[in-house]
């Protein structure tokens, strides 16, 4: 009998091209997603060295970070010159190197981590990389998926491989069912709050337990997406019938006999009974509540019923200083109940929460209610296909009637590279993934929440507990 192996161990072994004496490995990359911000220097490097793209059929490209999302804005040229040059550079590079590309006007265009799964590019047991840290999203399919820098983007384009060392295995086990009002976003914020923003450094986290198995693919993507916010190299969830059901019939998914052969391979991927993890964290699902972040690190997460922490209660001097700095930056005071924090802006979207289930959750709260007069509320679907489906379901009408703006797809206010951003001192409830200083615009203040909690905040004009809504 061979040693029981984890899902990560199996994927790693299946992709080993060779191993050097010192343990450095060359691993094969099955899928490479490319966007306009982290690829121009990589293509320039290929050109300078006279190299081509080894597997264009394993690569897709899309522009997402810089794209305007105001309705009608993408019909014209992009106003910001640097943004326009980045998008035009990608458009030239994909032609020169023969890489499949979803143009801005294509309904399949969207945030790279939304469209990979949508198109069936992301499959169980594959290795998936992209010059973007939220590549961890694709781990929801049982794919080993991680973000890389531009030098590595160039390395993958040229060789379809990466030089890596194996990660450690971490298990995060969530037994039991999530309480009412709690979503995948609350779950992952609770996990990061528990293990900290460096808790997963050097590890791949495999999420297990009933609360994880019960999630839809959309929810699983939300959880894996924020693995990087816990410092992990990647997040993984074992593929099961939910995974196969999502994938079947998608454009790049295997068809006919190949489908059956693929499913047979995929069913052998889950961790063996008795597989050993280097680190194990167990959180009972009943401890999860609707969460919000109060500070400037994703680990600054607390249940909405809590209050801003008091630095005086913290023993570790570095941590105390960090908490004080966050409180000052965020314009809060120690002990202030989170539910009293007034907001100016709501952002619903991003690779974390820009999928159809997220738009449905926001619309369910918005239905029959009004966005507070003091609040600007944006809903930015993650892709053209998410937008089209939401419109077919009438969700756009519910949201616009409630006073939300209904936008075109893109990364938008998650990182404020296009013109959607917070003004200095403005405060948002945002479904994105990072509450870093200045992330949504210089001086902007971000509170991370689930889509339902974001919609509840839009209606209340302050951070609110959706369980308290009339």
């Amino acid at each position, binding site marked *: 009998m061979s040693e029981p192996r984890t899902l990560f161990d199996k994927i790693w072994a299946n992709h080993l091209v060779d191993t050097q004496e010192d343990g450095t490995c060359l691993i094969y990359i099955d899928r490479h997603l490319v966007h306009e*911000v982290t690829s121009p*220097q990589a293509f320039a490097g290929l050109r300078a060295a006279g190299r081509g793209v080894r597997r264009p059929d394993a690569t897709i490209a899309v522009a997402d970070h810089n794209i305007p999302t105001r309705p009608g804005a993408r019909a014209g040229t992009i106003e910001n010159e640097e943004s326009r040059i980045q998008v035009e550079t990608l458009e030239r590079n994909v032609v020169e190197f023969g890489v499949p590309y979803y143009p801005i006007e294509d309904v399949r265009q969207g945030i790279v981590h939304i469209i990979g799964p949508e198109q069936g590019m992301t499959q169980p047991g594959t290795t998936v990389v992209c010059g973007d840290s939220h590549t961890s999203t694709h781990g929801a399919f049982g794919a080993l998926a991680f973000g890389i820098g531009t030098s590595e983007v160039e390395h993958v384009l040229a060789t379809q491989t990466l030089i890596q060392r194996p990660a450690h295995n971490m298990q995060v086990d969530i037994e039991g069912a999530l309480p009412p009002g709690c979503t995948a976003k609350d779950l992952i914020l609770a996990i990061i709050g528990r293990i900290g*923003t460096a808790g997963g*450094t050097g590890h791949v986290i495999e999420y297990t337990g009933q609360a994880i198995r019960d999630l839809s693919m959309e929810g699983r993507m939300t959880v894996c997406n924020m693995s990087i916010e816990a410092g992990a190299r990647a997040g993984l969830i074992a593929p099961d019938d939910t995974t196969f059901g999502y994938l079947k019939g998608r454009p790049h998914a295997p068809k006919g006999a190949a489908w059956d052969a693929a499913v047979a391979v995929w069913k052998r991927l889950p961790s063996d009974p008795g597989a050993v993890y280097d680190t194990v964290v167990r959180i009972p699902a009943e401890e999860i509540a609707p969460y919000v972040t109060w500070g400037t690190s994703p680990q600054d997460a607390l249940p909405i019923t809590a209050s801003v922490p008091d630095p005086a209660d913290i023993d570790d001097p570095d941590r105390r200083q960090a908490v004080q700095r966050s409180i000052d930056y965020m314009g809060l005071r120690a002990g202030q109940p989170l539910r009293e924090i007034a907001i100016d802006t709501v952002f619903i979207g991003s690779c974390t929460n820009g999928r159809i289930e997220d738009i449905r959750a926001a619309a369910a709260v918005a239905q029959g209610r009004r966005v507070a007069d003091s609040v600007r509320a944006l809903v930015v679907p993650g892709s053209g296909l998410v937008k089209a489906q939401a419109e077919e379901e009438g969700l756009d009408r519910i949201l616009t009637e409630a006073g939300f703006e209904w936008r075109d797809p893109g990364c938008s206010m998650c990182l404020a590279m296009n013109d959607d951003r917070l003004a200095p001192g403005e405060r948002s409830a945002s479904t994105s993934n990072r509450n870093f200083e*200045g992330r949504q615009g210089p001086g902007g203040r971000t509170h991370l929440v689930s889509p339902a909690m974001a919609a509840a905040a839009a209606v209340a004009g302050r951070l609110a507990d959706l369980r308290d809504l009339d």
Partner: protein
Amino acid sequence: MRKFETVTSVGAPLPQINIDTDKIIPARFLRTIEREGLGRHLFNDMRFDSEGNETPDFVLNQPAWRGASILVVGDNFGCGSSREHAPWALADYGVRAILGTDFADIFYNNSFKNGLLPIKLPAADRDKLMEDAERGENARITVDLENQVITRPDGEEIAFEVDPFRKHCLLNGLDDIGMTMERAGSIDSFEASDRIARPWLYAE
């Protein structure tokens, strides 16, 4: 890639924990198709006010530390995004070595591709170096990669660990892609057998 040679410099102290890549270089400066010239935006929102004037309190704006080639940093430096613009900005500014306890994985990896040496040290050693760094001028620290030794201003030596492959690449300024291309035969044979095992992942 530029070869890493022994560096002697004051250490600029950045004791804050969790300095993320948005702090190292905010996203709005990522709208470039070049690698060069990003040093002017390094730590932009800490180094400059909203009008673009230097903030006098920020360490790299103070005469003792301006242009430092060594940073001594708080825990979990470089967390956040995969942007290689962060090490590009650091290297362009002139930083060559970063002394901390732990670094976010992607940032750590990206640094080595750009002639930048991040060094993971026990907290006690980092704390001693932080004290040295805070003394400013005349407190010069030396980082010797070949011998894997940091020399404090008082002459005390602190040994450090580094992955042998990364050390070799950094000392010789080697390009990863060129080395991997030499193993094209292994990649070809991997693909040939994988094409049989998982044909659905290959275009017909």
